[in-house]
């Protein structure tokens, strides 16, 4: 049950990143930062101000989106790998804010005692009900993202990822579209953040490090850029992998490293073969 919830959370995370990384081609390493903003916003609002989940989730999305908007104004002046390095910097800044701003986030001590979610007077503290809730969020987000990708705006984003200068030449506002896509992607990342905070009921900055960002990015890439269903399968794969390793008799400490080694290897192989995700590794030829 715990694993299914994790799969749901990682699906949400990777699908939201897929909007900017997959469709628009903005490979971002700051996603765990926005995930963290979502988690911290709800944690602070619910423990200190007693906000309910339904109020804090839109607020978390707004705050995450606002920060992403400001950040994207700056970061999107750079292109390609400079953009990646820039988002890496942003990720580290966000992390050090979470880790060091003691008054707001209690730093490395984390925020304990986040209440569980109440829905129509019912408390959702059993795992099955929480799973239902997260799955419904997955369904909503998946639906919204699918519609965005099918819409004219989504088509523009794909065009930008394929040829930026050409898209600009036919009158698309590339800079604006990138900002919107980056901001939306960060807003969606706040949802799993808020869910995570309520689910674990305790958060600390170590859940939102650079490594987490890299993990999310590798889910997206393994699943295939611009492939929402692929993100779901890759998320499921990476969550279940440690269990599989434990099943073949590997001790936990080794399994954690083995998992990372395996996904690192997959990442290298996918990139070396130049295909778009594992799914298309053996089928049609796609240039990333």
């Amino acid at each position, binding site marked *: 049950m715990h694993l299914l919830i994790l799969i749901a959370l990682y699906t949400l995370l990777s699908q939201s990143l897929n909007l900017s990384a997959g469709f628009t*081609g903005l*490979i971002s390493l700051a996603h765990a930062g926005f995930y963290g903003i979502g988690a911290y916003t709800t944690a602070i609002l619910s423990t200190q101000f007693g906000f309910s989940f339904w109020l804090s989730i839109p607020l978390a999305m707004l705050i995450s989106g606002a920060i992403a908007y400001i950040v994207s104004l*700056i*970061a999107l*002046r*750079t*292109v*390609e*790998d*400079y953009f*990646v*390095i*820039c988002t*890496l*910097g*942003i990720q*580290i*800044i966000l992390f*050090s*804010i979470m*880790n*060091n701003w003691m008054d707001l986030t209690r730093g490395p001590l984390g925020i304990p005692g986040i209440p569980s979610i109440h829905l129509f007077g019912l408390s959702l503290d059993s795992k099955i009900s929480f799973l239902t809730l997260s799955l419904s969020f997955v369904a909503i987000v998946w639906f919204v993202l699918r519609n965005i990708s099918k819409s004219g705006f989504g088509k523009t984003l794909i065009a930008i990822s394929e040829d*930026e*200068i050409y898209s*600009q030449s036919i009158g698309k506002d*590339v800079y604006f579209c990138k900002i919107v896509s980056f901001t939306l992607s960060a807003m969606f990342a706040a949802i799993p953040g808020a869910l995570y905070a309520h689910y674990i009921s305790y958060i600390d900055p170590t859940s939102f490090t*650079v490594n987490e960002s*890299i993990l999310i*990015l*590798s889910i997206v*890439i393994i699943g295939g850029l611009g492939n929402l269903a692929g993100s779901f399968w890759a998320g499921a794969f990476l969550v279940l992998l440690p269990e599989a390793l434990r099943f073949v008799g590997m001790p936990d400490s*080794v399994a954690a*490293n*083995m998992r*990372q*080694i395996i*996904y*690192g*290897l*997959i*990442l*290298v192989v996918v*990139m*070396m073969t*130049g295909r778009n995700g594992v799914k298309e590794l053996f089928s049609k030829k796609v*240039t*990333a």
Partner: protein
Amino acid sequence: MQIFLNTIFTFTLYLIIAVSYSIIYYPTKFFHIAHAAVITSGAYFVFFFVNEFSISFPLSIALAIVAATLVGILCEVLVYRRMRTKKVPILAYLIASIGLYIVLQNCISLYFGDDTKIINTKEVTIGNQIFGAYITTIQITTVLVSIALFIALNLILHFTVKGKSIRAVASNPELCNIYGISSNKIILIAFGIGSSLAATVGILSAMDTNMTPTFGFNLMLYGIVAMIIGGVGSTRGLIAGSLLVASTQHLAAYYIDTKWMDAITYIILILFLIWKPLGFSGKRLKKVEV
């Protein structure tokens, strides 16, 4: 005075990282993230040789530099070179090298464990006093070694055939191939030099403080920041970049708080990317910005 000495020490350390990074970046034009693992592996190989085979300390250092250089070269031969024949976009290299970094770093964690290791066998001394400030022997060695390496490398790059070839490949790989300079071979040499410098820095830094399997990553990022700030392709830019990063970090540590050192480094980077995206030197990095 203490701040000044610390700054000098960090400055030389970052300078060599920036140099080792940029020598790979010039001809290949992508961010070799796995470089961080090379830095780390240098230090861990010393630990490995000293503890497993009880080889003497100086010899272990030499062996470790060779071994770490091999790691760097293997990255190039096994992964990047094959990608280059396929003409994949530049971002694919970056992602592949992130994957490589994850693999290498976890191999180190798997073998040595995640806890902090110390390779400096000598007992901790209070350090030498210069003008009322303290500096340890290791730090002095670092400063001297770094400056020597930096000068040597610049001589190589500007006055030997191989060095000139590296710069030639950096400016136009295809034209070099036409003139009979094999760009693959030159890139391999660049990886060799870069990785051995990185291993040296890793060892020095691990001797100064201590090491964990991830310590190379931060060091490398400071190197990248220094390189971007300095502007790619300029020696003076690299000096200025590393100096700026090192001094800001120490001033921030002194006047604000040590915990904000990282954040401030990246704020400088982002400020630079906004106002002076080409760095101090003003040389164009690559392609036109859209």
